């Protein structure tokens, strides 16, 4: 998985509880992304980061916040989990360069909100 790990890999939580998912990368990528994957929707961008402490919203950011205090870690927080946030969450990262580059993905976190 190109040096990208996610934790936890599986989590079951109750509605209304806060949840934090962690993405860790070892390749010094500048850009990091959080996606959610749901049947019939493909992958949708939640938030992304373009550097330490620099983040911005994606297309489905409501109910989520992120933080990036170190290059290697990108945290996704669900402040108060809802059943609609049951999903598989993927982290991705890429480096800066003059040529187009791919994103590298982590293995995913399966989150169930009951």
């Amino acid at each position, binding site marked *: 998985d190109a040096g990208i790990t996610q934790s936890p890999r599986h989590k079951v939580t109750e509605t209304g509880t806060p949840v934090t998912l962690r993405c860790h990368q070892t390749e010094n990528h500048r850009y990091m992304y959080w996606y959610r994957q749901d049947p019939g929707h493909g992958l949708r*961008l939640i938030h*992304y980061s*373009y550097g330490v402490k620099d983040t911005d919203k994606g297309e489905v950011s409501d109910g989520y916040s992120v933080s990036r205090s170190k290059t290697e870690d990108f945290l996704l927080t669900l402040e108060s989990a809802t059943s609609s946030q049951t999903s598989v969450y*993927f982290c991705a990262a890429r480096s800066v360069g003059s040529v187009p580059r*791919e*994103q*590298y993905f982590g293995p995913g976190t399966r989150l169930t909100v009951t």
Partner: protein
Amino acid sequence: SQQGEEDPQALSIQEGENATMNCSYKTSINNLQWYRQNSGRGLVHLILIRSNEREKHSGRLRVTLDTSKKSSSLLITASRAADTASYFCAANSGGSNYKLTFGKGTLLTVNP
């Protein structure tokens, strides 16, 4: 909103046959990428084609891009059972943050 839309949603073929998947997108792009996802795993990059390219090859993969029709196709030749996976196109519309907009994917099943 989804930038890429793959067609078909599901494809089942026999080993040795070729598999073709199509992708349409809505806005102008800088490049278009194809990813593969095995069941329960993360996505893996397959191939990238820039907006000024029309065709690109990588091993058994052939990608074409038609910017006038805002469409791309991925051809896998001589398919193998191990090619069974979901395939996604992802459009990069340029900009400094290199965001990708993914389609919903094509589930390819290659029967031995």
